[in-house]
């Protein structure tokens, strides 16, 4: 840990001279990208809840989210089943929208009312995952644990706070509006009171494209550009969804390993370094997201033509994360990050960063392989993972008669 406290900025300085030249070189082609999203088709008002896979994973991230880790208090397997059935029932209603029943004079109102008398679906998604701890002695599920599901590892650059790590269940709520997210969270926690308790919770937001293309993170860089195409179902079967996997329990089919990492950004520090240095840290341009050897956001970096990293440093985030070699192709994963804002820290700096979420079929071969390559990347001086967890996003709820975890608990 002590070693990681020392800034590693010097590691990059060698490359800066080279990189700065590259930046100047491509600067001439600025502004070639225009508003790509202007004529998008109107979106339907709800996201289908039922299906082979859960929503909220491969669909584009709407503007608001909250990621909540719960510990289950249910006393036994039957109560756990009841809990998951209740979450299913509430999620089914909330994602479809409708009029909450009126309890008359028999009880306080069923609904918090913050969305008005009729609950709009507002494209809400509810995504439920299970953590490794759910497979301990309590519910007799030990032999059904997804093979790779363990408590999240501590990586060398982490500074994990136990209060912000792990959990029995993860529930991610996403919607275009913050009140929809809060409404859903209050509804679900109320309906399940006593059966699970919040362990930690972090709210996320994604800005609109500025001015076009992929939305930017709080460091000013487009974030998500090189993601595999989430609209390509075949690709998602390769990268995200578990099929008939060797060595995995059959119930996992249709689910996905979900990794969440709560990563603080040192934004004040970040704002004090030059654009060129920022760009070398990521390997992409800040203005339009193009790789430093390219022109447009979606140009593919040509690492083979740049073996020593004179355009895109070998230590840059994108080159470490995905060296784009035949050997590393199997480590590609799907990221679905949000920004977070947690207030102010002890020295008056902004406690903001990334609520990093990614999905994959194989925790070790994908997330852990990528994260291992990123160990001691120069970017670590500006970011500090402080929490998160490994979860397994359950297979989808098939229809009105199905519920979350039905195959797991069968």
């Amino acid at each position: 840990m002590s070693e990681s406290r020392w800034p590693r900025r010097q590691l990059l300085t060698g490359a800066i001279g080279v990189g700065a030249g590259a930046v100047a070189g491509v600067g001439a082609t600025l502004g070639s990208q225009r508003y790509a999203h202007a004529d998008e088709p109107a979106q339907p008002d709800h996201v289908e809840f039922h299906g082979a896979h859960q929503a909220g994973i491969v669909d584009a991230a709407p503007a608001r989210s909250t990621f909540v880790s719960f510990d289950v208090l249910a006393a036994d397997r039957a109560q756990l089943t009841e809990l998951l059935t209740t979450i299913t029932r509430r999620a089914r209603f909330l994602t479809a929208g409708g009029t909450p029943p009126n309890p008359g004079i028999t009880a306080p109102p069923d609904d918090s009312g913050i969305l008005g008398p009729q609950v709009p679906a507002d494209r809400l998604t509810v995504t439920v995952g299970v953590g490794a701890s759910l497979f301990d002695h309590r519910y007799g599920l030990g032999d059904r644990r997804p093979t790779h599901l363990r408590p999240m590892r501590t990586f060398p650059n982490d500074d994990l706070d136990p209060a912000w790590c792990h959990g029995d269940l993860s529930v991610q709520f996403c919607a275009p509006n913050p009140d929809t997210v809060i409404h859903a969270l209050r509804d679900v926690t109320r309906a399940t009171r006593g059966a699970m308790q919040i362990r930690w919770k972090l709210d996320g937001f994604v800005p609109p494209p500025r001015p076009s293309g992929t939305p930017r993170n709080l460091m000013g860089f487009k974030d998500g550009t090189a993601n595999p195409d989430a609209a390509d179902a075949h690709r998602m079967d390769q990268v995200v969804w578990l099929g008939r996997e060797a060595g995995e329990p059959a119930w996992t089919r249709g689910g996905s390993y979900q990794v969440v990492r709560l990563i603080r950004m040192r934004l004040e520090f970040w704002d004090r370094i030059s654009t060129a240095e920022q760009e070398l840290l990521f390997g992409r341009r800040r203005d339009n997201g193009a790789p430093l050897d390219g022109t447009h956001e979606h140009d593919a970096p040509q690492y083979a033509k740049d073996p020593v990293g004179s355009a895109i440093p070998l230590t840059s985030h994108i080159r470490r994360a995905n060296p784009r070699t035949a050997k590393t192709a199997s480590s590609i994963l799907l990221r679905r990050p949000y920004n977070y804002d947690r207030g102010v820290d002890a020295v008056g700096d902004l406690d903001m960063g990334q609520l990093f979420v990614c999905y994959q079929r194989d925790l070790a071969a994908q997330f852990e392989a990528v994260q291992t390559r990123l160990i001691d990347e120069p970017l670590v001086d500006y970011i500090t993972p402080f929490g998160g967890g490994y979860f397994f996003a359950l297979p989808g709820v098939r229809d009105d008669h199905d519920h979350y975890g039905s195959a797991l608990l069968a």
Partner: protein
Amino acid sequence: MRRARRTAVIAATALLALAGCTGHDGGEVALTVSRSGCATEWHDPHGGEQTFRVHNVGINTTEVELVDPANGAVYAELENLGPGATRPMQVTLGRGRYAFRCLPEDTDAVTGPTVTVTDGPKRGAPAIVPVDEQVLRGPVDTYRSSVQHAFPTLRRDVRRLAAAVRSGDRAAARRAWLPAHLDYERLGAAYGTFGDLADAIDRLPAGLPKGVHDPGFTGFHRIEYGLWHGESLPALRKPADALSADVAKLVTQFRTERVDPNDLPLRAHEILEMTLQFELTGEADQGSGTTLATARANVDGTVAVLDALRPVLRSRFRGLSAADAALHKLRTLLDAQYRHGTWTPVDDLSAPQRRAIDGAAGEALERLAPIAALAQVRRAQ
């Protein structure tokens, strides 16, 4: 500051819950009410989700209820519908007989024509036979006598505390503090009735300009603060004697004070709302680390309220046994934190222990909450 003063807003709360509802297309029926007629326009009733737009064309503020004419059970209500106002009443109607009942201010109730629903779902929204002051008289008496029954012990233990403080033996004074405080906390439900004395006896420093050093900081927690923060015992004589005097005053006052019958159903969940906010967070702790003991005493206070209300609830509250079970679970979890004569300070709980207790308290609260709504006093005729 710890006493919830909810009685005054009850009517408005119920009203908001209903005012927020509008019906499905086609399920809307416009009705008028006044002293001379109560929703006489309802001729063609249908089952399912319905919204009645009730317009008060009279000159009196009126309560409007949709009832089962056989027994007066209420399906839905609009409280305080002012002259000229229109408000929606949303309800799901099952098959059966219905009538509107209007209770205009200062005049007799008027019941509208009985209508019969023959289509739609078999069962609709639940109905409850309303509770009036008469019905609550028994529970209030039961509750009053249980409080009065507890007073002698409270007085004795508070006097012992004062004596221990005067003796100058800090250890003895600390030992005497908790039993006296718990005697008081077990009365929980009486916050509202104890008026300003409740503040003097059991207030927290919050809200006082000088906090724990404010002369207005009195009562149990003032003494607790001194005993556990090394204040000299002679300096604590005054607050200890004042506490004795205030408790004596309370006992005298209570004999003649009227218990608002509405208080009782409210307290069913309010006591534990306070527990969650002040005891399970540890906020109330002034050094003794006994907020879990207080929480445990508050569970007893809640059970006393529930027991008093039981005759009224048995026929009206389907969730009664679930509420009992939730309280039992909470009590068991709290009892486990009393070992070898001491209570675990809330901050010493492991995170899982804490979540289990907080979760059980939350569950008990959800289960108890309907009681305030369904046993609220409603006008009889």
